[in-house]
């Protein structure tokens, strides 16, 4: 029943790295969507001219717009998904591309991150996230077990057998990354974003965001979406809404979500990010392939 899955990336890619991969015909579409979205949201296309939080969400909205352009390109080429999954804020992206919410609402959800960041600043919370390359989920779990409490740091997402995202208090993230480096990580680096998405501590700082996610009626998605939290197949608008709410403060198992998609019969994965970022940190078995924009 499921043969082809679309994979949506989260935030993190720099706009210039995304845009360099869009061919001219897609750039035109991108420019149109960008103009419309930034005009409506009051964001400056010259990203440096935006205020601190605006600048950050503006980058994330560019990422969403690129996803939309690539998604529509795949559909126009006759590449239709049987199912999809969104990594981190890729959930917001897939919610709009799969028709559960309008694209404008997805942009508004991203804008709500400003309220979360403001709240963290007001409470003087020093949080961070980081990436460890070279260790699996189980390796990191074992390494952290007697050194950190879950209040300090958790694994925000197990991405593949060599790629893990950690999230928590900034000082713990710093110590953990140093530990990983000394234990043989190929690379370990922090985001320096001041937030700890996918750590439960975020729940109390993201009430406005979570409430906003529920402020519209979600349609049933056109194609099913696999939950990256419980790995159930979501077919209703209500489920997609809950997924968006959980997203901020719930750990992900992206690796297990991909395994589940394979179990469901998926052999063709399509990375919807413009720069093929998902294909780089994800791994599927040899009988499967992850296609990127470059391949299409």
């Amino acid at each position, binding site marked *: 029943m499921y043969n082809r899955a679309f994979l949506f990336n989260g935030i993190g890619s720099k706009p210039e790295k995304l845009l360099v991969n869009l061919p001219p015909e897609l750039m035109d579409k991108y420019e149109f969507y960008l103009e419309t979205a930034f005009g409506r949201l009051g964001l400056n296309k010259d990203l440096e001219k935006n205020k601190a939080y605006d600048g950050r969400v503006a980058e994330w909205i560019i990422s969403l717009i690129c996803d939309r352009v690539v998604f529509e390109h795949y559909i126009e080429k006759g590449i239709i998904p049987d199912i999809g999954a969104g990594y981190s804020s890729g959930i917001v992206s897939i919610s709009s591309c799969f028709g559960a919410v309008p694209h404008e609402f997805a942009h508004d959800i991203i804008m709500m991150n400003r309220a979360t960041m403001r709240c963290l600043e007001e409470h003087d919370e020093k949080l961070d996230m980081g990436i460890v*390359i*070279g*260790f699996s989920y189980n*390796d990191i779990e074992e390494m952290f077990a007697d050194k950190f409490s879950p209040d300090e740091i958790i694994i925000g997402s197990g991405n593949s057998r*060599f*790629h893990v995202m950690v999230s928590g208090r900034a000082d713990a993230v710093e110590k953990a990354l140093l530990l990983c*480096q*000394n*234990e*043989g*990580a*190929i*690379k370990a680096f922090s985001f320096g974003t001041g937030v700890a998405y996918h750590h439960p501590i975020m729940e109390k700082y993201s009430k406005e965001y979570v409430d906003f996610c529920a402020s519209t009626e979600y349609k049933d998605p056109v194609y099913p979406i696999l939950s990256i939290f419980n790995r159930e197949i979501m077919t209703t608008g209500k489920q997609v809404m809950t997924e968006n709410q959980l997203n901020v403060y719930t750990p992900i198992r992206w690796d297990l979500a991909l395994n589940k998609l394979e179990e469901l019969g998926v052999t063709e994965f399509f990375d919807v990010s413009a720069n093929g970022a998902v294909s*780089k*940190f994800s791994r599927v078995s040899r009988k499967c392939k992850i296609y990127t924009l470059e391949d299409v």
Partner: protein
Amino acid sequence: MREITEEIRQEIKDMIFDYYAEECEVEKDEITMDTNPQEDLGSDSLMFVELIEMTADKYDLDIKLQSIGKYMLKAPMDTMSDVVEMFCKIYQYGNDIVNQ
């Protein structure tokens, strides 16, 4: 320890140069042994991991990334020469590279 011939050494070098040329979208002859893979070619750690996986498959090696990571603490990969040298050592010593 596995013996490495000049032929294998050249094969590893070609494989690495071909890989970076394709991934970084540069002409192979623009890459020299002095090229810095990060700064000059814009490569990243995920490309590096993919190259390790490719090499492990090609030469049927059972290599842990952590062994390579620990080796890199002692020998940073600043030039293509460093990268080629490291992959030759991976071929020769496998996980024991960490003790080299």
